[in-house]
């Protein structure tokens, strides 16, 4: 396992230095991409894909904090994602709550659930943690499928449109800007978190839990904190997805969906916030592109996944960043 690198980047003068951190420069680039992207989005189908990418990216950013920075795997985050959506749907559709309040309540409830189950779960390590989170996800999925009077069962349920103080969110374009803002907020929060003392503690945990503990890092507390944060990120994305689509089914909570989310994180690059965004982008687009292959879709997707992990074992973004760095060094020489 690699040791956590806490060394800051080399100092550069003036504006260049100010922009060179991912917290400012990277965020600026992402904001630019978001603002300019609508020039390329020719119809509502393209907008829909862009929205899906952004929503998946929000989940992946949270999950990457847990997997990439804290080094704790979760194979159950689709459960939190679906609970966020179902909670908001049930409160607003069946109890007449205003949808924005339903969404906040539902996400807070998921955070609370993650706090309660996270305590015993995060004491487990490695594959046992994978097993426990997988089990949690499957239990959530079974409950959502079986309690059909509340959730509509395997067929799913309709979700009312999201409205904030009477302003109803309609149309792909409106949703694009709302989801884009949420994505920027998520990236900004995550970047701030990993530069904070909590982030440094997490990276120390990833390097060596015992070493971190001897230095006074309360590992259980930090792991639990980031588990809850990642669950809330997933719940927010889940609630937004449900309100955007106007519909939610238990398919959102399955083991396969949890696995897809983890694949996005590892594919894009662990311990890289922008890696999570790239992973979400590639793995949301790829199935859309592969649908032309019809029956061969699953096969090709599996082959692409294997090949990528063999040639980019650290994920796309960190591997490319290293290539770029060595290229720069080669030019300077």
């Amino acid at each position, binding site marked *: 396992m690699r040791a956590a690198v806490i060394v800051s980047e080399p100092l550069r003068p003036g504006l260049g230095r100010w922009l060179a951190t991912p917290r400012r420069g990277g965020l600026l680039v992402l904001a630019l991409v978001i603002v300019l992207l609508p020039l390329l989005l020719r119809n509502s189908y393209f907008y829909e894909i862009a929205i899906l990418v952004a929503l998946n990216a929000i989940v992946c950013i949270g999950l990457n904090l847990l997997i990439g920075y804290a080094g704790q795997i979760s194979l159950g985050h689709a459960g939190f994602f679906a609970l966020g959506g179902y909670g908001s749907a049930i409160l607003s559709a069946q109890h007449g709550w205003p949808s924005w309040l339903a969404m906040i309540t539902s996400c807070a409830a998921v955070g609370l659930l993650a706090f309660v189950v996270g305590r015993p779960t995060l004491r*487990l390590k490695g594959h*046992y943690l994978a097993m*426990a989170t997988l*089990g949690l996800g*499957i*239990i959530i999925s079974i409950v959502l499928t*079986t309690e059909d009077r509340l959730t509509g069962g395997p067929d799913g349920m309709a979700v009312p449109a999201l409205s904030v103080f009477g302003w109803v969110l309609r149309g792909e374009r409106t949703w694009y800007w709302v989801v884009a803002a949420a994505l920027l907020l998520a990236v900004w929060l995550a970047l701030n978190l990993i530069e904070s003392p909590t982030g440094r503690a997490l990276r120390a945990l990833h390097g060596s839990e015992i070493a971190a503990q001897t230095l006074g890092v309360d590992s259980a507390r930090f792991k639990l904190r980031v588990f809850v944060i990642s669950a809330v990120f997933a719940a927010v994305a889940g609630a937004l997805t449900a309100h955007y689509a106007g519909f939610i089914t238990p398919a959102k909570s399955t083991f396969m969906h949890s696995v897809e989310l983890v694949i996005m994180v*590892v594919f894009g690059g662990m311990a890289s916030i922008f890696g999570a965004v790239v992973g979400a982008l590639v793995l949301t687009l790829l199935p859309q592109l592969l649908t032309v292959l019809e029956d061969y879709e699953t*096969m090709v997707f*599996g082959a692409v996944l294997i090949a990528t992990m063999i040639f980019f074992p650290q994920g796309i973004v960190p591997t490319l960043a290293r290539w770029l760095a060595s290229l720069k060094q080669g030019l300077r020489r």
Partner: protein
Amino acid sequence: MNGAWLQFIASGLTVGAIYALVALGFSIIYNASGAINFAQGEFVMIGGMSAVTFVGAGLPLWAAVPLAVLAAGGVGLLLEKLAIEPARRADTVTLIIITIGASLLLRGMAQVLWDKRVHPLPAFSGDKPLQLLGATVLPQSLWVLAGAALAVAGLSWFFGRTLFGKAMRATAFNPLAARLMGINTRQVLLASFGLAAMLGALAGVLVAPITFTSYDTGVMLGLKGFAAAMLGGLGSFPGAVLGGLLLGLVEGLGAGFVSSAYKDAIAFVIILAVLFFMPGGLLGARRSDRV
């Protein structure tokens, strides 16, 4: 004990024996590579589907079954050579993603090579149910139990009595020390994939006459096998068998007495409870980290 109990126990043990075979595959590969092979369930599918194909081609059952198991073993070896070997130095998480990719690849290939329909396999010795102590048992259930018992006996002979089996155990215990003693650990990794694939395929062939088989049967059986391996303690062979049988029993009794919709949820709740109190599984190694 009344008939209902016996009935649920009998059906639970049958499923449990299947889980145990799949769980053994997980533990064998974990011991050789330190990774979880999420393509393990696909070997179950390949076993069942190949047997159906061989029978369809006119082969007698006694020839189709071993052929199907061998075919799956070949797929396991190929998988190790083409996907795992090139990524030997990668992290465990990366290896896991590769096996997930492999499971999608195999499932996709099955979908193209065969089809998406459900296929029956004829039972090994007729469909006439037997009456045993008040419970009704399919003859195929006895085949499942006997087949699993035979496989476990064969494995304990292989790991306890043969040089290569001992080499595999040595590699699981300490790969570096094993290499220093002249054990070819790459061969061990290759063999473990072949062995795990054959065990999975055996499970697939044995259960196909009861549950039928299709291109996606491997998904749930793979998950249950993983759960059974963790319940018993990852890497422990007696643990895998115990975990599989227990998981099957819990499911059988849960489905019978509580709710068949919630049988899987009950199984996972119990596994979580066990792991919370015994974080290394029932028979897992009590390991301490060296600082």
